[in-house]
């Protein structure tokens, strides 16, 4: 017996389009094609597979009214008790610290401006990705070098009221800098009010004011002057990953690395969600929230369905900007006065609501619990046009 042709399978499977998700259609097609090579598939069998697929998909749909929010919150919150509190070393890159477990999860939900351990994974384009030396050189370019990094000593000369910096030659060479270059950057950074004199490897910096406290202030300022590299990127590590070289950085500045030629802008990423929002936009931020949370949970060996995490990411990004899960974000912007008051800062919410003459329409969960009504979720979401008192009466 000869089975149906590959063309027929393709045509028939395409009829599933719109009835089941794209991914399922593709899977059915590829699997059937694979099977048909080894075994003849009859028309009837093909039809049965397609029918069963649709049936199975329809059977797996969520029910209307399902309290998907609460389930998502519980699915993420409940395993929280099983997570570690410690910060461990990054898997693979022992040189970099990374926040993991519960603290990281909380950090993501808080959408902190700067995560406690900001980290970038910088992928490289063609010639750099394959050549270790070129990757190294690029890493050098990214790593932030400050004055502090290239001096062996900084003295405060109180007699002449000046700072004397001893430049370390070998470190300068390592960072591909020259004393004159350093002097140039420092003097342009400090402006015309300070005089910078280079004397072999000694850098003398004199300021106009000349008080001791001013000298101290100057010293701290000089230390932090950036000589090269990208702001905030404090450490770089080049690692071979598969068949390419990847740069890991401590400290994050996505916009900064994107400006460097040779950096693969499509794959390079950071764990700072706010930064992704600013540089790549809200959709990217949503994806970053999902992947960061999934990774955090997976690393802890906890299995959580991605749909729950998507929902959290979606509510955090639903109105176009990343909002925190908490009183300064989603919870603080609830429609209901009672819901806000029942969460945190009870009084302020009540007092403000009075002044603004707000109205609570009682459409959420907490409000209805407070007023003693059924909640508008699940079976409570169903409204029937029938009065209980009339049952059984003529």
């Amino acid at each position, binding site marked *: 017996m000869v089975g149906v042709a590959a063309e027929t399978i393709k045509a028939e499977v395409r009829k599933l389009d719109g009835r089941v998700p794209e*991914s399922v259609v593709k*899977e059915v097609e590829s699997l*059937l094609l694979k*099977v048909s090579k080894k075994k003849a*598939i009859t028309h009837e069998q093909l039809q*049965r*597979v397609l029918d*069963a697929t649709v049936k*199975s998909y329809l*059977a797996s749909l969520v*029910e*209307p009214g399902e*309290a*998907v*929010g*609460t389930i998502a*919150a*519980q*699915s993420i*919150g409940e395993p*929280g008790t099983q*997570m570690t*509190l*410690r910060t461990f070393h990054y898997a693979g890159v*022992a*040189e970099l610290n990374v926040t993991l477990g*519960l603290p990281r*999860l909380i950090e993501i*939900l808080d959408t902190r401006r700067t995560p406690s351990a900001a980290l970038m994974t910088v992928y490289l384009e063609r010639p750099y990705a394959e050549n270790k030396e070129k990757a190294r050189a690029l890493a050098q370019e990214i790593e932030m070098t400050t004055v502090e990094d290239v001096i062996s000593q900084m003295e405060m000369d109180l007699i002449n009221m000046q700072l004397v910096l001893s430049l370390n030659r070998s470190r300068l060479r390592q960072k591909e800098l020259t004393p004159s270059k350093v002097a140039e950057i420092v003097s342009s950074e400090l402006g015309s009010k300070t005089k910078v004199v280079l004397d072999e490897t000694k850098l003398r910096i004199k300021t106009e004011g000349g008080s001791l406290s001013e000298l101290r202030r100057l010293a701290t300022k000089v230390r932090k002057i950036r000589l090269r590299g990208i702001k905030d990127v404090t450490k770089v*590590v080049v690692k071979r990953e598969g068949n390419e070289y990847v740069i890991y950085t401590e400290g994050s500045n996505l916009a900064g690395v994107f400006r460097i030629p040779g950096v693969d802008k499509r794959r390079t990423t950071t764990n700072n969600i706010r930064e992704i929002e600013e540089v790549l936009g809200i959709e990217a931020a949503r994806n970053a929230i999902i992947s960061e949370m999934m990774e955090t949970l997976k690393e802890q060996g906890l*299995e959580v*369905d*991605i*749909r729950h995490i*998507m929902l*959290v990411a*979606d*509510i955090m990004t*639903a109105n176009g900007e990343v909002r925190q899960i908490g009183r300064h974000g989603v*919870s603080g912007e*609830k429609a209901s*006065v*009672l819901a806000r*008051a*029942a969460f945190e800062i*009870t*009084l302020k919410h*009540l007092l403000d609501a*009075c*002044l603004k*003459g707000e*109205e*609570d329409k*009682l459409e959420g969960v*907490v409000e209805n*619990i*407070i007023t003693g009504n059924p909640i*508008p*979720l699940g*079976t409570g979401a169903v409204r029937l046009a029938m009065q209980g008192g009339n049952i059984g009466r003529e």
Partner: protein
Amino acid sequence: MRPPRAIESIHFTLLSPDDIRRISVTRIVTADTYDEDGFPIERGLMDRRLGVVDPGLRCKTCGSGPRDCPGHFGHIELARPVVHVNYVEPIFDLLRSTCRKCGRILLSEEVATKFREEMEGKKSWWEVSDKVLQSVSKVDKCPHCGEKQLEIKFEKPFTFLEGKNRLTPQDIRARLERIPTEDSTLLGVSPEIRPEWMVLTVLLVPPVTVRPSITLETGVRSEDDLTHKLVDIIRINQRLAENIEAGAPHLIVEDLWELLQYHVATYFSNEISGVPPARHRSGRVLRTLSQRLKGKEGRFRGNLSGKRVDFSARAVVSPDPCLKLDEVGVPEQVARVLTVRTRVTSFNIEEMREYVRRGPKVHPGANWVISPDGKRYDLRYADREELAKNLEPGYVVERHLQNGDVVLFNRQPSLHRMSIMAHKVRVMPGRTFRLNLCVCPLYNADFDGDEMNLHVPQSEEAQVEAKVLMAVQNQIISPRFGGPIIGGVQDHITGVYLLTRRGTLLTKEQAHQLLIEAGVTASLPQPAVVRGGKEYWTGKQIFSQLLPKGLNITYRAKICAGCSKCMKEECEKDAYVVVRDGELIHGVIDAHGYKALDKCELLDEMVREYGEEVTAEFLNKVTRLSIAAARMLGFTTSIDDEDIPPITKERIEEALEKARKRVEQLIEIYNRGELEPLPGRSLRETLEMRIMEVLAEVRDKAGEIAEKHLSLANPAVIMARTGARGSMLNLTQMAACVGQQSVRGERLSRGYVGRVLPHFKPGDLGAEARGFVSSSYKEGLRPIEFFFHAMGGREGLVDTAVRTAQSGYMQRRLINALQDLRVEYDGTVRDDRGRIVQFLYGEDGVDPMRADNGKPVNVSKIVRKIIGVVEED
């Protein structure tokens, strides 16, 4: 009592003085509460028009008794106005943004109109007022009347200054009165509210029901904190009025006014910074209005979003392997108190009559009868015989809880929905709630004194909902990851392993015994072995009797050592499980078969193919079977399971000694400055990392050496390897070497200067000095090791405590942010405002609980079923 009407919405606003007078039933003028006879004084704070709380009294306003009277408000006319402390900030904003003379906003008409237009029709119009406030720059001349403006300063808690002059509440009120409503709206005050209402001239007095007095056993009345505060207010108010009347010196009037302000302020909130809190005579700080609402135990979180309920019980829980998965053992004592409202019908009237006759003291009885006209009869006192006779359809009987009733069972913390499930009642002797062991992981319950709660749904609707949606069987699949979370625990795994492993042969009597204990009545299959005229059955055959026909599955058991090349059916450990048509052909059943929170391959397949009822029944049987098997085949573990022969001990000792030397070497290299630093690490860090590496390695090595003597013949090893309880790490720590103790992921280092304990030289970096425990638990730890171990152990305890608090708060925030979301009929996910959060739930509309390993459809399974088995590549 009037039936409560459904609340449609709640409007928040401020009350005008006239509003207050209108809703007030009486003006309160005297600070005295009760007369000598203990009767409430008229126009006092306990005036009977404000409602009643004492039994026997009737409310003078509504005529009802204490049960039905909701209470009624009164009011106090203040002799002089005072500011409402909670509104000082809006008052300040209003004062400095409006003209001191004409009261208009300090913006040109043009700008103001622009803002007004922006506000027009905006739902959250107040967001504009923030901008308005910012743009009301420090104008020194009113754009409307040209009056020169003075700078207004606000001094906490409630003093306003204009230049050097203090603005009295009267002045403030006068100014606020001058602000036109259009202008105050621009500044964030609702158009229906007059700004001057934030300066109080009349004070609302809450009903007595809000501040009931308590009569102590001694007969002394103790008043509520609010009443105390109100007494203070009335007293000072009176004195102030008298002094004004008598034309007392300005200074005295000012002082009293200030005092009145203080009392009214602390009446609203007793936690104002810069204001000494008002105290009770005993020195206790009073709990006034704000404090009543705030915080975890406040009105909102403590009484409104979480309420106390009737028809509930709480007791210690204990296990009962004879109970079914979905049952809960309820002590008879509890069943006699908890009742179910049952409507008498023609179908159950005889049954109900019997319950009524038996009354409250005999178990399946009843406690109350309610006649159709709403009259309640207490069966403790009523003539039960008479009542039973008169019973007819339409009556309601509150009958005792009995077998088969649906109840909700709960253990806190209720972290997920499986923390509250519906069980069927089994009334039994004893004083604890009993539960099947399989549900322990869901509730996270153990029996070291855990208590659980039980709730009895009263209406038929609630009972059905509980049964259909919350029953234990319906929770076998976790909504978190879509796999089974109910399963066997501990001995359930050991027992079934002993039964299904190779070489377990059972005589006919044994086989029957096991099956009958499991509750299987089917006849035995053909014996596997006939030896010496006697028939024998394998354990696998017995186990197969519980599997549904047609079940097919192949997977690797937990005991699989992860051999590089799997021998499949020929696996010498029998770790390759093959089930064909409901027959266990190869492999042993262990944690990967049906353990809760493990891989659960067998259960997973069963739930998907046969549904929850079949799986629940399987669990009921298999747990009983495995316990019976463990009992029959014998299983015991004791401390000598961790015995290892002296030669092995020596070899472990050797390995440890080698490692010690290696550590010393490393330290020496480090001291000589020859250590090669790891990239990005300091020398010291590198040394630590290298030492930790060596010590971790040697612990593993010691474990490995010991493991050679810990085979599957060892009961403790059986438990660890099958995943029933404990791990090989636990065992080797007992048998061979405990290993490095750590705090914050590093070797121990804190304590004395340069050393952890004074037994070592300062700066000693050796293994022993920094918390390496080379003894095993079985040998016992040396005192120093014991101390180190305690250090490491303490971190674990602190960690757990901190983590529970942190994750608890995280979950509260998550729940609050997400709880209003639901799936609509169009497949979108929306919040309470109706705003769309997702266009299609989870991007494919699939319920994680119904998904197959996260995927909407298990295509390969369908193909395999319809087209047949396809060879794996």
